[in-house]
Each structure stands twice: as C-alpha cells, then as structure tokens.
C-alpha cells in the first residue's frame, strides 16, 4: 500500500468522506467530522499508520489535507 493510499485512507476512515473530496479545499472544519475531536483522532491515526510522533506545532498547523502532506515530509513521509 503506497503512502498516498494510507494517507487518504486515514481521512476517509476518520471523516467518512470519499477520495474525490480530498484536495486543496479539504480543510479543518470543512466537514462536521473534522472538528477538534476529529482532528486529534486523525492525528493519532496518522501517527499509528506511519509510525511517527508529531510535534505540537505541526498538529496545530495541520489544518488541511494539502498542508498535512507538507507536514509529513518533516517526518520522512513522502505522499
């Protein structure tokens, strides 16, 4: 399974969205499920899937699907 598939799967599982919705417009609070609680659930799922531990500022700045791809690069994850 590629990193892109793993990354998308986390969003799809956490926020109950389709893959077509995952683009630069998919941002924090754009769907009801991506609220503060959903956000931490998504972060926890990403940490598990990629075996990383994200720093506080990255968790707070991880405000969109696209920004997330950039943030994961810092942890050696290329999407």
């Amino acid at each position, binding site marked *: 399974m590629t990193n892109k598939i793993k990354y998308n799967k986390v969003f799809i599982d956490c926020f109950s969205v389709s893959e077509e919705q995952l683009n630069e417009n998919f941002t924090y609070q754009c769907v009801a499920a991506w609220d503060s609680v959903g956000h931490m659930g998504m972060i926890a799922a990403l940490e598990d899937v990629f075996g990383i*531990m994200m720093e506080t500022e990255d968790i707070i700045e991880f405000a969109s699907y696209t920004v997330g791809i950039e943030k994961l690069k810092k942890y050696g994850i290329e999407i």
Partner: protein
Amino acid sequence: MKIRLAKAADSAQFAMLHSKARNTTVGFFSKVSVGFLNQYYKCTLSHDDCVALCAVNDQNKIEGFVISTTNARADFLNLKKNSFILGIYLLSSMLKDFRLLFEALDRFRIAVNGNLSNSYVKTDEGARGIYWIWDHSGKNSIWSGTMYNKHLHILYLLGVKNFTIEVDKSNTKALQFALRNGAVITSENKLKDGRIRIIASYNLQFKFVTKRDIFNTNQERLS
C-alpha cells in the same frame, strides 16, 4: 493562543464556558446554574490534587480547559468538605428542577461512604478526568486536543501511570477520540437515568515513554 496552567481565579470563565457547552451534555451538571458551576470550579481548582490547563486567546479570554484530579477519592472528599456552600449555590437550580436535590445527594453520598454501585460517577480512586470543554464558537478549536494531550503529559510527569476517564456511550466523538488517543475501555455501566457510561483508561507510561522508545528505535534502525 497559549496554553497555561489554570488557577482558582479562572473559575468564573470555566463556569461560563461550561454553561455554553451544556446543550451538548446531559446529566446533573447540564442543569445547574452558572453560579453553582463557578463555586464548583473554585472548590475543585483550589484543591491540591487538581491538574488543570486552559487555552487563552490573544484577547486573554479562555477558549477551552481541561481539568482532572490525581486523586479521585480526595476530590470527592473535597466536594464533601464544600458541600454546604455548594448546596447554597444549588438552591436556585433546584427551584427550577427539584430532582437535582436527589442527584446532588447521590454525589455527596459517594463522598461519605464511597459506595459507587448506584452512583453517577464510577471512579473513586487514582487519577480521573473531570471535564474537558472547548468553546467551539471560536476559531481556535484545533488547539483543543493538543491542550488535552499536554495535560496528559503533565499528569505523567507528576507520576500518574494510569488515568481514568468516564464518557457517555452516546458521546461518540469524545469516545472515538479517547480510543484513537490510546485509551482502553475497561468497563461499561448503566446509570440510574439510563445512560451507558464507558470507563476507559490511559496507560500514560506507554503513551509517553514506551511508544516514543519504539518510535526512536525504529528511527535509528531506518537511518
């Protein structure tokens, strides 16, 4: 935004936030007055075993807070010690809903005899979560979970190994968050009012030490 330790002087803002969030909750604390909540938080925040953080925005307004105790039994006893003043503040709420009297007595009975079999709270020992509340009308809610995990980390640094939370099963978001965040369900209880209460526990040793050790070891092997 900044996250800081909370103090008793924050009780009024905690009470207001709690009051705003009450439409999303059920039970005793969703029916009591702001005055009671203020007094409750003042008592709780003043207690030695209380660990509380709050998130403050650029206007110095609290947007969210999390509050726990490292000693649930001592927290009950603290409420018992303050039962007279809390009772006075409860009077105005009881005028609107007299059944609150019975719920209040229930809570005070736990403090007296420690019998949890028929109560609304199921944890009376060790570290226990009390409240985690965020004002979602603000735009900074993305900080909420980070504040929560910082509070877990502080508990760990204070020597807490296991941390218990109680969540209504109907509160699916909070429950889902807890489970994804590393909590493990330990039991399920039916409360007198029909709610199903899930008891879950965080192993803070695993969350903040073992998991990081595994991560660091893997990083070393990959490099």
